[in-house]
């Protein structure tokens, strides 16, 4: 894969280039940390999928997790909303904190954690019901019964993802009749309706065509003004176009995924510190 350095410079124009802090974390002192992992390891039964991952994810920015297939990107992403809990035999070591909450403590309510950390999946997965119900289902289950309030939430959420004008007269239509891009937007709107603080995107554009991908990327950048966004992507150009921070992961001989390099995206792509990162982003493997 060939990286176009010019396009990178253009996209990075809007973000002021800031020097790394000397403390070892690539974040500036001005950026506040939303999620912090400290020596995070994850095992599926006897298999270790993630090893010793420590990094800080900044608030209201886009952090991209990149790396070759099978390196544990999605597993790492699913650590943040504890979706890995669904897999029997999963064990997490180390510490993951969301603001001040250590999310793997026994006392943590997973359901309310998932309200704070929303997720958009690889394949658009609207529920087989009306557009309105797809969005209202979250708020309803959190206890909102007032019809007017639900209407407002649906309207607000669809407006955020630029679907309101297209769909406002068809809210009763089945979500399955929408185009894949609209379905993915609907899924993002559904997540926004729960008023999350963090949104995880798990290769959420990989099922879409290039034009739809661009539109979803624009939406992500827009959402990053208010939400902390973490994306997993195997698309280098996408990481370069949208993300502020990039985390490069790889597996070693023991098959456990490690964090090789974590840097501001523009720095990583123009001047990678690690040879493996350089090989990967310049397309020599992966």
């Amino acid at each position, binding site marked *: 894969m060939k990286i176009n350095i010019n396009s990178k410079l253009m996209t990075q124009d809007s973000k002021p280039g800031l020097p790394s802090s000397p403390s070892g974390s690539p974040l500036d002192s001005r950026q506040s940390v939303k999620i912090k992992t400290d020596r995070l390891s994850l095992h599926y039964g006897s298999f270790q999928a993630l090893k010793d991952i420590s990094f800080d994810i900044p608030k209201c920015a886009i952090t991209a997790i990149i790396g070759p297939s099978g390196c544990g990107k999605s597993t790492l992403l699913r650590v943040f909303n504890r*979706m890995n809990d669904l897999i029997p035999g999963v064990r997490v070591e180390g510490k993951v904190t969301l603001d001040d909450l250590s999310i793997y403590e026994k006392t943590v309510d997973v359901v309310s954690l*998932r309200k704070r950390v929303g997720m958009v999946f690889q394949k658009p997965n609207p529920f087989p019901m009306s557009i309105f119900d797809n969005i209202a*289902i979250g708020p309803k289950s959190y206890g909102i019964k007032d019809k007017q309030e639900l209407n407002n939430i649906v309207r607000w959420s669809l407006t955020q993802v630029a679907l309101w004008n297209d769909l406002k007269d068809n809210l009763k239509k089945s979500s399955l009749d929408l185009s894949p891009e609209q379905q993915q937007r609907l899924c993002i709107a*559904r997540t926004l309706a729960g008023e999350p603080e963090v949104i995880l995107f798990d290769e959420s554009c990989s099922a879409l065509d290039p034009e739809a991908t661009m539109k979803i990327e624009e939406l992500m950048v827009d959402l990053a003004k208010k939400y902390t966004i973490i994306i997993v992507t195997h698309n280098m150009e996408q990481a370069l176009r949208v993300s502020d921070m990039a985390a490069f992961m790889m597996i070693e001989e023991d098959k456990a995924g490690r964090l090789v390099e974590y840097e501001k995206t523009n720095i990583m792509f123009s001047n990678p510190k690690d040879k493996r990162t350089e090989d990967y982003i310049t397309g020599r493997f992966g």
Partner: protein
Amino acid sequence: MKKFKEKLSGRIFFIFALSSISVLALITVFIIVKGAPIIAKVGFFNFVFGMKWSPSQGEFGIFPMIIGSVSVTLGAAALGVPIGICCSIFLAEFAPAKMREFFRPAIQLLAGIPSVVYGFWGLLFIVPFIRNFFGGPGLSILAGAIILAIMTLPTIISISEVSLLALPRQYKEGALALGLNHWQTIWSVLLPAAKSGIVAAVILGIGRAVGETMAVIMVLGNAVAVPLSILDPVRTLTTNIGIEMGYASGEHQQALFATGIVLFVIIMLLNSFAQYITRKR
């Protein structure tokens, strides 16, 4: 030569397939030929809505038996459907793998018990139980409904469970990722998504209950009268045929075949409704 062989084997399978269909056609024609004349003679309205069944005096009204079939079936549905659906939810969503491996064949076994054994068991346990605790003769709608509810469980449970398990994993993940708890996920996402399969399961279960004869013949009491409470004895369409076929002749026999026509139509309607719903997705 090879081609001829293939053609021949295709033909042979076709003949076997045809034979099963032709049996259906034969039975249908036979019932209609035997039963239709008496309906024509008595009049459709008098036959279906007639209150008096007394073959020796030439009175052929099957309305009490239609009421009997409907009441016993509704009773069975009221008991069996909630239990069956809850059981399928448990198996699809809550049961650990090991328990599922035990439950599934056990439920299939329930379908393998001969219906006469159900009837016998009902006569010895359920009928006395009802007589002692609720009063009445014990032989009643309630007894039949309980037996039929148990007999419909395997159908309802296995088809509902399959339709729940067939849902894409993304529905469940999506719902949990939104911060719905497990029960909310089941209730507001999984059940609506599996609705058509579950409705089909219920209808097929009810179809089985309408057609069942041997098990209910022993516990219903078989009185030809419109029941006033669930503790009253009734006669269903099926048991009417089962009881009287042995000695009926002439018009009486024709009337029993005509009862069969009514039953046939009801079950056909139920099954095609179930098919329609599953196809509609």
